[in-house]
């Protein structure tokens, strides 16, 4: 079964052709990060306009690289939410046009389900139930996954997303946008235990997250550091490393706590922050201690991409789902609202 997956939920215009939810024939991502960098964030209006400009060439390129024609497709899967309304509309209406004209089934996809299921691009077999941590600029959530489509939210951020903390701290440190990579890079030469930034574990059993206090702490520390009121030996790399460590400590702790509660033998990472190599190393150590498996998608499927949408589309299409032409975008779209697949 050949599925075209389209995602335009935020920065990137992406399209991908995937066979049977596993074999990626093409994965084209037109990233707008460069375009956004001067502002230190994503610019929605600019994003919609860019999506509009890019959607056709990106889909065309995805089909070309996959060496297939539109008529070869068994389905078109498109993200309908959550995300920026203007951006989502571009992808959805383009998909509607293609599906209508070529009489191909269309499947409406939840972006977060795409992230969770993206792991099946890497691993053929994952034992249910597993625990998934989706962590990006807009989300930090822990899910129990009982089957394809059956997700229970175990915990989420109560304020800022982990990726947002990286972006905002990178901005006040003058490291640019997006903040994940530059912080990880500069942190390599710093000492992660130089500064004890606060870790918000909330209550003992809580699986929720909070990164707002950490962000504030770093902002206050940085101001003092710039005014020469801190230990003169502390470098910017130390601040970055100590900040990163504080985020990763909490992510690792909560993910393991969730795993222990669920009793899962497999844990899964997804979302842009899953590209962080130190996070992966830390979790691999924790997983080894518990004799469980850790999986994460390759970096190109961690950030937003069309392939994960095609994967979700594949399972939903197998389940007999079709979206009709009246389907609309949803800026808020909790993954728990999804219908479990039978």
């Amino acid at each position, binding site marked *: 079964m050949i599925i075209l997956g389209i995602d335009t939920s935020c920065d990137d215009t992406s399209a991908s052709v995937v066979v049977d939810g596993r074999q990626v024939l093409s994965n084209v991502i037109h990233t707008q990060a460069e375009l956004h960098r001067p*502002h230190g*964030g994503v610019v929605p209006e600019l994003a919609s306009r860019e999506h509009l400009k890019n959607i056709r060439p990106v889909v065309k390129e995805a089909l070309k690289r996959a060496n297939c024609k539109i008529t070869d497709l068994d389905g078109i899967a498109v993200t309908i939410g959550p995300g920026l309304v203007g951006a989502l509309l571009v992808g959805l209406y383009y998909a509607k046009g293609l599906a209508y004209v070529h009489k191909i089934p269309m499947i409406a996809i939840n972006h977060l389900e795409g992230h969770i299921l993206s792991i099946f691009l890497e691993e053929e077999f994952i034992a249910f139930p597993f625990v998934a941590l989706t962590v990006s600029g807009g989300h930090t959530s822990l899910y129990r996954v009982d089957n394809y489509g059956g997700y229970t939210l175990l915990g989420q951020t109560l304020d800022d*997303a982990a990726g947002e903390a990286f972006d905002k701290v990178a901005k006040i440190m003058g490291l640019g946008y997006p903040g994940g990579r530059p912080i990880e890079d500069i942190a390599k030469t710093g000492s992660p235990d130089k500064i004890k930034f606060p870790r918000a574990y909330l209550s003992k059993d809580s699986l929720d997250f909070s990164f*707002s206090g950490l962000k504030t702490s770093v*902002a206050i520390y940085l101001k003092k550091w710039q005014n020469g009121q801190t230990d003169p030996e502390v470098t910017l790399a130390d601040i970055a490393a100590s900040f990163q460590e504080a985020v990763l400590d909490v992510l690792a702790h909560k993910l393991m706590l969730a795993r222990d509660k669920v009793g899962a033998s497999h844990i899964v990472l997804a979302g842009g922050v899953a590209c962080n190599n130190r996070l992966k190393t830390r979790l691999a150590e924790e997983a080894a201690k518990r004799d469980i498996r850790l999986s994460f998608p390759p970096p190109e499927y961690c950030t937003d991409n069309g392939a994960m949408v095609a994967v979700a589309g594949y399972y939903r299409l197998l389940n007999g789902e079709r979206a009709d032409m009246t389907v609309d975008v949803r800026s808020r779209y909790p993954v728990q609202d999804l219908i479990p697949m039978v």
Partner: protein
Amino acid sequence: MKNMTIYKTVQSENLVCKSNSFQETFALGQKIGGLLKQGDLIALEGDLGSGKTCFTKGIAIGLGVPRDTIITSPTFSLINEYDGRCPFYHMDVYRLGSLSEFLATGLEDYFYQEGVVCLEWADYWPEILPPWSLKVRLSIIDESSRKLVFSGEHPRSKELLRKIE
């Protein structure tokens, strides 16, 4: 709240509060949330970490948004909507690059609807604010304490200032 100092500055009609903890900032937000009605707009200014989101959480609860609702940062989504006594719109223009981009998002429409708006980073483009906005400037004093300065010239803003006092 008991220990919180609220005083009027000599030079202006501004109200100045010192909050000694995030709990106090939250409680002050909650008190103000209790005074708000449809159409009101709270314009928040202040650096990263000055307590804008914390103060907004208080406003939401004061406005009758259920206590178990999770009020998260709208930085990524730009706007989060909640249901209290009336609709509550929590907005954040932090990652918008210019006034024209703000206008293109359509967020301005929410200022003139049947709800209460709380806008973070409202000082980016002061010209977008309706005259009846209540401005709140938050600043960091030290790790735990914050200064909040309330101001507004419109009769509605002045009415709110009197009630807060």
